[in-house]
């Protein structure tokens, strides 16, 4: 695949970026087994992601990025997930970290993109243990964090850290910090032995008494809030100035929808010609097989329409600079969880009627199923967490904002 010349960056159109995503599919299909076995992306795939500019979709223009609209990002990941959900996860979820960095102070952005504009920026979003302690000019950070997707290929990683309890009240410090660290500051712990999206390589990171200067530490909530520090140097795009939670929380819908579409296409292709293993006969001729295919197809279509609606709202509101209300947010959270539920139901129905052939690791429908159900465990599409607040509001019990990184009770 020919590399795109980034020396004088002009942003591609949506059609162009999707064409590049399509172009990656044959190679991704060839590498899916290797990727699963490596439990990280193959180096060649990372090269392809950089060469096609997939990691630049939400990167600021000032650092060689494309500053494309939200839907471009989701759509590219959706297409890539037709072949490889793990790669789509890196493009979508990890790719969105570029927008988070773009919201941070200029010095952070210079540190990361100054030396090299091809970056996979990891974040380890779930804290196992650990905290930050204030010292002169910065913080000392200790701890272990989970789910750092793509960390094997990252030069930088962000972690959320609470300020140590004894420091609170003494300093004018926020409750939860976003800490940006170069890879020399942390070590990777390989804990990623999982049933799906194996190649996302979402391992743990560990750091021990690391000094992080003040400018690479900021209030977690402020990074996602209106007009964060980075908005001043990246003023053109709404993704760097508007509230970011609704966007980031939507970043796994593209990979999930793509995985379900991929499963459907592969199922259809296999089933159209399949003969029953034990009793012979064309499976496609069976009315119940036809009916289940139709049901899964309707679910995937419903999910896609909801996904497109979600992208449209995100773009329109961002472009107009109008934040979502708490009720609108709870509706969006509800819909995202519902989309995930529809997609998992659709693909589970398909894989379950493939008989024992649906069991084999190299069956593409089985692969999509494992990836989809693994992605479906992500907190942004967790059913209880995301649908209950809407019901509560509808019943007159008030609306609430649910956010990530609510500090654990200190121990």
């Amino acid at each position, binding site marked *: 695949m020919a590399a795109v010349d980034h020396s004088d960056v002009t942003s591609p159109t949506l059609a162009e970026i999707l064409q590049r995503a399509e172009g990656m599919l044959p190679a991704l299909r060839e590498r899916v087994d290797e990727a699963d076995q490596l439990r990280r992306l193959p180096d060649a795939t990372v090269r392809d992601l950089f060469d096609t500019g997939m990691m630049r979709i939400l990167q600021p223009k000032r650092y060689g990025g494309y500053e494309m609209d939200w839907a471009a990002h989701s759509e590219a990941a959706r297409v890539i997930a037709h072949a490889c959900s793990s790669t789509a996860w890196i493009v979508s979820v990890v790719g969105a970290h570029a927008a988070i960095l773009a919201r941070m102070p200029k010095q952070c952005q210079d540190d990361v993109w100054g030396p090299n504009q091809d970056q996979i920026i990891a974040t380890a*979003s*779930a804290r196992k243990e650990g905290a930050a302690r204030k010292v002169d000019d910065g913080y000392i950070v200790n701890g272990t964090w*989970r*789910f750092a997707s793509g960390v094997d290929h990252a030069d930088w990683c962000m972690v959320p850290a609470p300020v140590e309890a004894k420091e609170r009240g003494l300093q004018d410090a926020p409750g939860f910090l976003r800490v940006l660290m170069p890879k020399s500051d942390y070590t990777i712990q390989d*804990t990623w*032995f*999982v*049933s*799906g999206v194996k190649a996302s390589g979402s391992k743990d990171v560990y750091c021990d008494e690391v000094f992080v200067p003040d400018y690479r530490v900021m209030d977690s909530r402020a990074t996602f809030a209106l007009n964060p520090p980075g908005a001043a140097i990246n003023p053109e795009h709404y993704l760097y100035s508007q509230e970011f939670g609704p966007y980031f929380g939507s970043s796994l819908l593209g990979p999930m929808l793509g995985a379900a579409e991929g499963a459907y296409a592969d199922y259809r292709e296999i089933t159209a010609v399949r003969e029953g*293993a*034990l009793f012979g006969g064309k499976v496609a001729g*069976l009315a*119940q097989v036809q009916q289940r295919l139709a049901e899964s197809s309707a679910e995937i279509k419903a999910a896609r329409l909801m996904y497109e609606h979600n992208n449209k709202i995100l773009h329109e509101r961002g472009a107009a600079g109008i934040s979502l209300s708490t009720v609108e947010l709870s509706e969006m959270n509800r819909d995202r969880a519902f989309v995930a539920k529809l997609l*998992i139901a659709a693909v*589970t129905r398909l894989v*379950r*009627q*493939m*008989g*024992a052939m*649906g*069991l*084999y*690791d*190299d069956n593409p429908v*089985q692969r999509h199923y*494992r990836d989809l*159900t*693994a992605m*479906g*465990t*992500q*907190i942004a599409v*967790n*059913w*209880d*967490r995301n649908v*209950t607040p809407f019901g509560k509001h509808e019943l007159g019990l008030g609306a609430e904002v649910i956010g*990530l*990184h*609510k*500090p*654990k*009770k200190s121990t």
Partner: protein
Amino acid sequence: MAVQEMDNQDPLKIEAELVARARALGPQLRATAAATEANRSVLKSNMRAVFDNQLVRFFQPKRHGGFELEWGAQFAIGREVAKNCPSTAWIVAVVGAHGCFLGRMPGAVQDEVWGANQDQLIATASVNRHGGAKREKDGLRIAGQWGFSSGCDHAEWAMFGVHVDGEAVPTQIVVPRSDWTIADTWHVAGMRGTGTKDLVLDDVFVPVSRTLPAGEWIAANPPGSKVNESYIYRVPFLPFVGMSLLGPLFGAAEGAYNDYCAITAERMGTMTGEAAAENAPVQLRVSESAAELHAAEVIMTGQIAYLRDAGKNGKTIPAKKRMEINRDRAFVANLCVRSTERLVGMMGAMGIFEGNPVQRHHRDIMAMATQIGVNWDRNMLSYGRLALGLPTGDAQVDQELGRAAS
């Protein structure tokens, strides 16, 4: 307890003793469940423990050191093992039940298999990938590959269903390990530890003494019933056979449920820091899954009692009841799948780690549910056609009910 002490006991007491032994093996099986998966075959040490505890002798004939237990013993034992390791449970209950597969064959081949060593796991390979058999003077000449031979790594003998000279009904043959090779095709999503690989026969001669047409083997009073006492070697086999996987399937679902409750009772959300057990929706799901498992257990208990009575007392099982048995097996499998699916999807990201027992049980249950004996469409459609007055497609059933094939 040694085999001699159990010899003259009530078969139900022996069954209870074997279940207790399976329970005692639980911690060892749980500790090695991940290693069993990685090995894609039951561990040698666990296989030794299975033999030492005589867990695969429940349907082995008494004249060869077995117990000839009541039908359904494999459900109780398999269920117990599966709470900790469904793959090992499959070897115990499904492959262990092949003791009566062989017990229905001619006496001479039983002597060959069990004469030298009474600790036998008898593999089968019944799905023909390619090839077949030709009749020769005094036996069959066979070349080809057959699929789904669970436990073959640990077997000295395997039974195949082969089609001779293109005949529609296969012939059962018993082949020693020296005559077959294993093709390792078992790279799968669940039940990895069963080692359900393919077996290859490359121009192998099988003497007629080790063969039996499948029609005779499954019909009432096959050759083995002349040498073995129990009804399990004598009954028309079809309503009985096909039940063995339900013990592992149900036990895996029960194990998943138990583990889910134990983990969730303690669990604080990784990102939210809230106690998962306090959520009303979590409580509702636990209840619904528990009720499904209870329904599954009640159905199986009834089915086992019915088959035992029919077998022991030589009662004919009418066509409608046979269809109902098949329907219920598929229904029970589906209850097990749904019960576990509801729970595993709600463990958050911790539910995808391979070390999570609920996750492993879930993959194993999904894998077991693909087995043809519990296939939803096949069993449900036949019963539905029966209930709607149509020919079922089962020749014997249709003949019995006087319904012409459409």
